[in-house]
């Protein structure tokens, strides 16, 4: 959406639409105390922290802290900032959702954060919180795990089989993507966006392209927006179906486990039909999409969609009628709605706690301004809820794709982009399959990217997994972990 920013009369923040851009000079510059007050007030009113990061100050020493708050009630983003010299008073004690953002600010800019209860680097640090006491023991897992998955370290504090506390230590996948993007835009930018999290290629590439388009004052053609959305929902279906199969595998229910593994592949192959890559590499490009669909391809896609829907329905519905599965899913790794709000859970993990939160309907951009997918929620916050919300979303995504393929807007699939605006900020959000993806891009006086902040939904949700494990037997960790299925690379960047 075009950058229609207007000053909010009530507070000193700036309202921005998802996919909007604004000159950096118009971002309200507050004192550290005012910024703290504003963030706490907004979060108290139900806003979430979309991004909170530091960038080098324009002149002199110190840094500028930029906060982007998702104000779903107003359907807009609040943007605010403050200049700090060497220290920022922590808001984590009042607003736990800020804990990782503040740790990252300290890590990336060297700003001290007095008052933070557990200030240590986000990416790689060997010290852990230890529970003391008789018969308390530690279990250490990773970084190299037993399965074919990404590296991370998990440190459990246990009493017997029961987990008292879990600390998740990541950073092994850190490969410097933000700094790589800060050279751009150049030939490598879109490929770095596509590989922020390989299983969310479409989600991150779309967020990145929408931010670039906002900076250039252009919008992708309607047909491209529809194709991006179709690919985004294919990505959601593939990952959700794969996860349902993996969850079935973790509780020893092999029929669904083996079929879903294959069905996930069938859905990935539909992405490959669109663009040649099972992960959607090469499809989303700044200004639109790189591949169009003709009638023959449309026919093929529709046919495959209906046969995959039939296969997925047969495979997944068995879960909800099999007592041995339900006995393991229900009540395992539960998070209360109150906790979920407090720590700022996003995406399906939040919806599984009964929170109606979905960028596609709350802060729509692209095709989502003109079409709707019902928000799927469940109340119990346990493994069952996270599995069941996945299945609800799979069905709705199938229906959405069928609708879109039946009525694709005509016209071009890509527009050329001029140079990005100078000294501007653009923010874009996409509801990826894990939750809200946020890209905030700031350009310098030459129009080149000077700060690129990526917030993957996993950044919000890893702490949720740690809390879900409290009081659980340590042997339930694989099941709980799978029910979140968070990204290591999206977190580590």
């Amino acid at each position, binding site marked *: 959406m075009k950058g229609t920013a207007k000053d909010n009369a009530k507070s000193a923040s700036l309202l921005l639409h998802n996919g909007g851009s604004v000159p950096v000079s118009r971002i309200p510059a507050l004192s550290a105390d005012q910024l703290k007050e504003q963030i706490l007030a907004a979060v108290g009113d139900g806003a979430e922290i979309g991004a909170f990061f530091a960038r080098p100050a324009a002149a002199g020493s110190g840094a500028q802290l930029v906060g982007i708050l998702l104000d779903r009630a107003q359907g807009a983003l609040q943007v605010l900032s403050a200049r700090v010299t060497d220290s920022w008073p922590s808001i984590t004690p009042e607003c736990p959702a800020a804990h990782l953002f503040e740790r990252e600010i300290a890590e990336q800019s060297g700003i001290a954060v007095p008052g933070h209860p557990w200030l240590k680097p986000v990416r790689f640090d060997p010290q852990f919180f230890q529970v003391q006491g008789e018969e308390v023991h530690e279990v250490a897992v990773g970084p190299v795990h037993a399965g074919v998955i990404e590296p991370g370290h998990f440190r459990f504090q246990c009493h017997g089989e029961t987990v008292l506390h879990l600390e998740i230590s990541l950073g092994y996948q850190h490969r410097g993507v933000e700094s790589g993007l800060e050279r751009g835009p150049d030939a490598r930018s879109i490929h770095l966006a596509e590989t*922020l*999290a390989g299983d969310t290629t479409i989600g991150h590439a779309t967020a990145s392209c929408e931010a670039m388009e906002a900076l250039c004052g252009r919008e992708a053609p309607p047909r491209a927006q529809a194709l991006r959305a179709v690919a985004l929902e294919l990505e959601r279906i593939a990952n959700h179906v794969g996860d349902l199969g993996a969850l079935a595998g973790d509780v020893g229910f092999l029929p669904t486990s083996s079929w879903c593994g294959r069905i996930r592949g069938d859905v990935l192959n539909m992405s490959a039909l669109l663009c040649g890559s099972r992960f959607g590499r090469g499809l989303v490009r700044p200004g639109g999409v790189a591949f169009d669909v003709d009638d023959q391809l449309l026919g093929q896609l529709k046919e495959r969609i209906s046969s995959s829907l039939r296969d997925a329905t047969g495979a997944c519905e068995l879960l909800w009628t099999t007592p041995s599965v339900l006995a393991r899913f229900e009540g395992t790794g539960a998070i209360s709605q109150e906790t979920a709000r407090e720590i700022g859970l996003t995406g399906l993990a939040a919806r599984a706690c009964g929170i109606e939160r979905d960028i596609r309907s709350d802060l729509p951009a692209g095709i989502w301004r003109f079409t709707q997918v019902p928000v799927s929620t469940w109340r119990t916050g346990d493994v069952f809820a996270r599995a069941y919300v996945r299945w609800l979303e799979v069905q709705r995504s199938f229906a959405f794709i069928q609708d879109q393929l039946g009525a694709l807007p005509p016209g071009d699939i890509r527009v050329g982009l001029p140079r990005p605006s100078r000294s501007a900020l653009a923010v874009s959000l996409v509801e990826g399959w894990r939750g809200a993806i946020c890209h905030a891009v700031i350009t310098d006086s030459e129009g080149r990217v000077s700060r690129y902040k990526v917030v993957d939904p996993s950044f919000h949700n890893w702490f949720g997994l740690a809390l879900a494990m409290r009081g659980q037997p340590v042997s339930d960790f694989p099941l709980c972990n799978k029910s979140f299925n968070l990204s290591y690379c999206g977190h580590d960047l």
Partner: protein
Amino acid sequence: MLRIIRERLHQGFRTTPFPTGEPPVLPARFRGLPVLDSARCADGCAESIAVCPTGALSNGPGKGVQLDLGTCIFCGECAAACETGAVIFSNDYRLATRRRQDLVIHAGQDLKRAESMGRELLRILGRSLRLRQVSAGGCNGCEADANVLTTVGWDIGRFGIQFVASPRHADGLLVTGPVAQNMRLALQKTWEAVPEPKVLIASGACAISGGPFRDSPEVCNGVEGNLPVDLYVPGCPPHPLTLLDGLLRLIGRVREK
């Protein structure tokens, strides 16, 4: 129980007959082995070279136009920028090689595809190859499409290949990712924990050369130079069929050139 059996009948048997039968049909837009025809382009593919994000396509003195499959991320930007057909991507999924230099291709030259690991290793590992997968940086795309080989669609277990939970149980490593600085030590220790004789497979552009993260100070540009590599599998990520073809070549189950 009856519902499960009924569903089992519907889902049927859908494991690919490859390699004894035909491989699955790949989509028309799939980007497999690039084909160079440099004679078609008067200015040495300059436009394509300019858009290559990783420097895989180059034109050096005495070398001519060449494409390094180990650095290529198969994005197709070079082919899209080329109007003469001097660079195109074919549907050929067979990309794995045994030697790093074999990944560099020129116009009119056939790719020297991987051969088996040799008689002695085949005798010990050929009928049962247990691999520990190490994800060392990267985007998780290569891991996801390696995992696919264990699903019923591919069923890699029928070749005696299995991903195992510990390096102590393994005959080799399948490494993915550009080897992030933070993973360097863990990868080294995992490699040392695998008993001899052992093999190392570098799967994906990242593990071979750093992929899209090449030359970031946070990564080591892949395993090359750190550990000895027995099989290179190009791709970003490699298609499951490309990886399977490479593994089967390594254990001598696919022998055609």
